[in-house]
């Protein structure tokens, strides 16, 4: 494809000029031809007319042989015209008379031959000859073509001059019109070149008309707009990409640093794990060897105690590692169930109070009255979070307090409450530069901590991941030497309480707390507000003495571990009409037996276990009395009365575990039947009558789940339902759910805790179940 060369203006001008020249030449040629034809025809006509006139006027002369007369006439004609010659010929062709340049005429009319440029006219001459007969001669007139050519030449010069002038005028007009018409295009081309040269797409061509060129200019400007927008977009994209690259590079660098740090931490962790595992293993193995050699029962008991403690530590390490493994592989799923947060909190705190017996440490909690009665939450994982945080607080606090406050911070979307769990301690604190690192796995604030406080460094990382799985966040505020506060905020869906409503406190009830712990006094103030009840906090017995005598309806809560103060208490709190003193002792989990004895000895109304729940306090105030001294919470297992003489079917394939569980149960006075797999278990159950089944999950031939399902199917329609408790090393939430779905009533993880096992047996084996639904069993 060839491209036209030269500027458009030059080409258009050339085309217009060429067309103009062609038109002028054509019209000029046509005009000249017309002029020439006209002149020639005029000359011929005039010449013919002259010949005719001569013929008419010379007839008589020829007839009467008047040559002189004819000559005279011809001379006259010659004088009056510009012809070259005139001749009259007879009918015989001879020249009768001639005038002018006679030599230009032939002597005989048949001999005429004239050059083409000359004009010749002939006219017939009728006359009578000498005998009177009619004859026809001829008149011949010859004129030169020069005048005609001269006139044509003049005409041609004028024509050329006129056409030249017209050509100049038309050419100039064409150039002017083309220039005017193409000026917008020329401006557009200039703008285009300017844009191409400067690459400045903000330039715009000026639109000066609304014709096609104006439309073209508008389209060109629109194209520049689009290019500018696209460039801006591309520039923005490039900038964003650069920003992203910088961010990604920084992230990669951070990830690399983290990976390197993680690698280092893992190496350290592996070393720590090795140490943590080897240490209890060393204790277990060493103490086991010593126990095997020991003969003194007291010495043997001491060795076994160490072995038990070391085993518990080892179990904790393994649990942490398993949890971390599930979290890292995203296999950890949460299961939200209706839960009362106060009960959940106390379930987490009370077992931990055992760790404080060697410390001057007070554990307390406060629950916001604005909290809903219940919330849908994964109680197991939430309890794990609180256990980790409170356990850490206890671990790193030698004296002072550990306080847990639960409150509703705000209401979020969908009716969710943002519930805050704040665990505050007065421990060693965490340096500011290590406060974020403690949430990283395998990390502790100080490597020396591992030596000093032990631990795997996984607890806070697991806690952080669990909180995030719940959709919440965790934060830490700490000052070295002052204390630390971990704050967990999770969105929870409010619901009804899964527990029966707490009894109402009699109107006019007034609680007087005597406690040296300010934290306790504060916590109790909140409890009294929730009941509701009047409240008076006193920090000593002297203050109580000053407040005496007590008003009717007053219930004294004494946080006093010293039995020597009972005399004073009995003096200040006289018994009522039933002989019961309206006094409750606040005690800890480990001193329940002692406290119960004090209550019986001094007719106290009862005791409450610290940390105290509002439900328990209300129960104690509403139904005071020593008989009600047992805790109402499921975790109050140590107070459960032991059960003996049950027929227990144990499905367990491992011989060692068979021996272990058999020894425990037989020692407690139960009748034990061992089944090595699910099939044998089902057969035994069908043949004999049992009070309880302890079922392992994984067994050859038939698993515990299959055996449970088979037993439940067989029970349908019988009206009986045997309690089945899983005793399994599969401790995940999924495993627990699978067990419950299969029809089991409770799940106890291995290694089994003997007290917990006894409590469970007491709970499920103490009475015969009469068609109890699975849900009811779960609630229990």
């Amino acid at each position, binding site marked *: 494809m060839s491209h036209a060369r030269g500027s458009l203006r030059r080409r258009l001008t050339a085309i217009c000029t060429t067309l103009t020249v062609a038109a002028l030449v054509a019209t000029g040629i046509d005009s000249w031809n017309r002029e020439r034809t006209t002149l020639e025809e005029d000359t011929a006509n005039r010449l013919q007319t002259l010949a005719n006139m001569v013929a008419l006027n010379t007839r*008589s002369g020829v007839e*009467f042989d008047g040559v002189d*007369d004819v000559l005279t006439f011809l001379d006259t004609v010659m004088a009056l015209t510009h012809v070259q010659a005139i001749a009259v010929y007879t009918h015989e062709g001879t020249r009768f008379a001639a005038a002018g340049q006679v030599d230009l005429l032939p002597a005989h009319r048949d001999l005429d031959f004239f050059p083409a440029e000359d004009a010749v006219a002939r006219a017939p001459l009728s006359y*009578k000859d000498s*005998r*009177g007969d009619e004859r026809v001669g001829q008149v011949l007139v010859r004129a030169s073509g020069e005048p005609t050519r001269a006139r044509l030449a003049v005409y041609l010069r004028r024509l050329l001059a006129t056409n030249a002038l017209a050509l100049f005028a038309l050419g100039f007009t064409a150039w002017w019109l083309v220039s005017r018409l193409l000026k917008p295009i020329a401006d557009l081309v200039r703008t285009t070149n300017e844009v191409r040269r400067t690459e400045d797409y903000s330039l715009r061509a000026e639109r000066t008309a609304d014709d096609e060129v104006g439309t073209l200019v508008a389209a060109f400007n629109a194209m520049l707009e689009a290019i500018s927008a696209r460039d801006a977009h591309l520039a923005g994209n490039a900038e964003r990409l650069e920003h992203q690259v910088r961010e990604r590079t920084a992230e990669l660098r951070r990830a690399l640093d983290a990976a390197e740090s993680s690698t280092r931490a893992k190496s350290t962790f592996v070393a720590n794990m090795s140490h943590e595992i080897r240490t209890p293993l060393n204790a277990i193995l060493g103490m086991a060897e010593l126990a095997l050699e020991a003969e003194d029962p007291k010495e043997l008991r001491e060795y076994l105690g160490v072995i038990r403690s070391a085993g518990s530590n080892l179990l904790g390490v393994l649990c942490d590692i398993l949890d971390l493994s599930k979290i890292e592989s995203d296999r950890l799923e949460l299961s939200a169930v209706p839960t009362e947060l106060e009960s959940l909190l106390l379930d987490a705190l009370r077992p931990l109070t055992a760790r404080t017996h060697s410390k001057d440490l007070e554990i307390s909690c406060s629950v916001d009255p604005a909290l809903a009665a219940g919330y849908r939450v994964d109680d197991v994982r939430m309890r794990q979070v609180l256990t980790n945080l409170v356990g850490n607080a206890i671990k790193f606090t030698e004296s002072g307090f550990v306080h847990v406050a639960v409150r509703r911070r705000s209401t979020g979307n969908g009716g969710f409450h943002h519930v805050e769990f704040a665990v505050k301690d007065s421990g060693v604190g965490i340096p500011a530069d290590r406060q974020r690192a403690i949430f990283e796995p395998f990390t502790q604030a100080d490597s020396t901590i591992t030596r000093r406080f032990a631990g795997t460094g996984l607890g806070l990382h697991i806690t952080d991941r669990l909180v995030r799985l719940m959709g919440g966040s965790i934060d830490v505020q700490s000052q070295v030497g002052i204390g630390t506060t971990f704050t967990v905020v999770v969105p929870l869906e409010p619901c009804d309480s899964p527990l029966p409503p707490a009894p109402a406190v009699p109107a006019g009830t007034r609680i007087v707390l005597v406690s040296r712990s300010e934290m306790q006094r504060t916590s109790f103030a909140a409890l009294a507000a929730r009941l509701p009840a009047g409240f008076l906090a006193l920090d000593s017995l002297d203050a109580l003495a000053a407040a005496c005598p007590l008003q009717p309806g007053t219930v004294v809560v004494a946080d006093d571990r010293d039995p020597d103060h009972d005399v004073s208490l009995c003096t200040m709190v006289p018994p009522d009409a039933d002989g019961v003193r309206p006094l409750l002792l606040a005690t800890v989990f480990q001193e329940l037996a002692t406290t119960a004895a004090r209550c019986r000895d001094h007719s106290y109304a009862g005791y409450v276990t610290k940390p105290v729940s509002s439900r328990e306090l209300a129960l104690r105030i509403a139904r005071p009395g020593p008989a009600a001294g047992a805790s109402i919470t499921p975790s109050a297992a140590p107070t459960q009365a032991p059960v003996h003489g049950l027929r227990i079917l144990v499905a367990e394939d491992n011989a060692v575990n068979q021996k272990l569980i058999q020894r425990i149960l037989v020692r407690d006075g139960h009748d034990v039947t061992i089944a090595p797999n699910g099939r044998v278990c089902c057969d035994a159950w069908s043949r004999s009558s049992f009070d309880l089944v302890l079922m392992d999950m994984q067994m050859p031939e038939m698993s515990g789940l299959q055996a449970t399902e088979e037993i439940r199917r067989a029970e349908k329609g019988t009206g009986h339902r045997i309690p089945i408790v899983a005793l399994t090393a599969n401790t995940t939430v999924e495993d627990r759910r699978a067990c419950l779905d299969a029809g089991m009533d409770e799940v106890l993880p291995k290694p089994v805790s003997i007290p917990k096992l006894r409590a469970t047996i007491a709970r499920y084996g103490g009475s015969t179940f009469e068609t109890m639904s699975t849900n009811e069993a779960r609630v229990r």
Partner: protein
Amino acid sequence: MTLRRGAGWFRGNPASFVLALAIAGVSQSSATPPQDHEAKTRAAILRASIVLKIAGYLSVDAPPSAKPPEKYRIAVVGTDEVAAAITAHLPGKKVGATPVVVVELRPADAAEGKGLGSYDLIYVAASVDEEQAKKIVAAHSRAPVPLVCERAGFAAAGGTVQLFVQDNGVRFEVNLDALKKQGVRADPQLLKLSKKGPS
């Protein structure tokens, strides 16, 4: 108006003299050789044709309702070679588109004006004496009949056209006054060729 270029017919004009001799010789033809006779005959025929040509340049006004003449009647008065040539050669010729008819008319009848209006042109031969010629002219002076004669002084005597020889050629004189009186019109080209004849 009369074009008179000479008072006498033969005065000072050798040609007229020769013509007279020739005419005279016609009457003595038996004594002339054959070559001369043939020349005389051609000359007579030439004169007769001149009479015919002259007739073609003369016309008489006719009323619009008049029918075009079927014949052009030429009356020959007297006898001579020209009259004989007219009688012999002109019949059948045409004046314009009208065929010529030649009749002979006695001089006395012509002098008396007999047959006036029956002829379109009268040729008076040289044999007619002068007195009779005058009477003939007088008889037709008001009649639209042109009179042609070769006698010298004929035009001066009131005749219409007088033939004569000049420079070896036959010439004629037209008497415009006679034409006017007779009511005959002559073509200007004829008048242009008119010359003064001998008296």
